[in-house]
């Protein structure tokens, strides 16, 4: 089960092509590079910087039903951590299959402890639930 990555900036598709072909760091890039030259989509997601006309480093995870499940926005000078993004994707994928489970902060991957049927009985007993 995968996730399609789409990168988006205010550059046109022509600039994306030129950048991909000139920058050797991008040689392995296989995802579509999308153009949002008017900033319309960046505004919709709240990451458009009206002062610069550029977009902040926003990451948005959308499930197969089109529902927004995760948002992370970094300022210009902080890169994203792909491990944390993968953790969020895996957790959301897990919970989409097991609706009665919740992934706690230390959940990293399949097989890690989840909180099953979090409810009245677990109030004040999260420590025991995670240890059990």
């Amino acid at each position, binding site marked *: 089960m995968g996730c399609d990555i789409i990168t988006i900036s205010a550059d046109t598709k022509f600039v994306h092509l030129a950048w991909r072909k000139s920058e050797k760091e991008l040689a392995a890039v296989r995802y*579509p590079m999308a153009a949002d030259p008017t900033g319309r989509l960046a505004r919709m997601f709240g990451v458009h910087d*009206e002062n610069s006309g550029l977009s902040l480093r926003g990451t948005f995870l959308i499930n197969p039903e*089109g529902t*927004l499940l995760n948002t992370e926005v970094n300022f210009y000078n902080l890169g994203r951590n792909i491990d944390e993004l993968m953790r969020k994707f895996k957790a959301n994928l897990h919970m989409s299959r097991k609706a009665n489970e919740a992934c706690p902060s230390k959940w990293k991957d399949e097989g890690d402890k989840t909180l099953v049927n979090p409810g009245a009985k677990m109030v004040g007993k999260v420590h025991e639930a995670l240890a059990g």
Partner: protein
Amino acid sequence: MSEAAGGLKLGTRVPDFELETYDPVKDDFGKFRLQDQIAQKRWTALFFYPADFTFV
């Protein structure tokens, strides 16, 4: 500065959108539509970034 964190709320449907793309696999231009992802039951991760030819 900007109103980061977003105009869309978690747990809500993302309005459909379409963007022009450069697809490195096909080495060609194309389009990305959210409704196509939904039709194909695919997860989507959108990565916004400031600009091509920058450094991070």
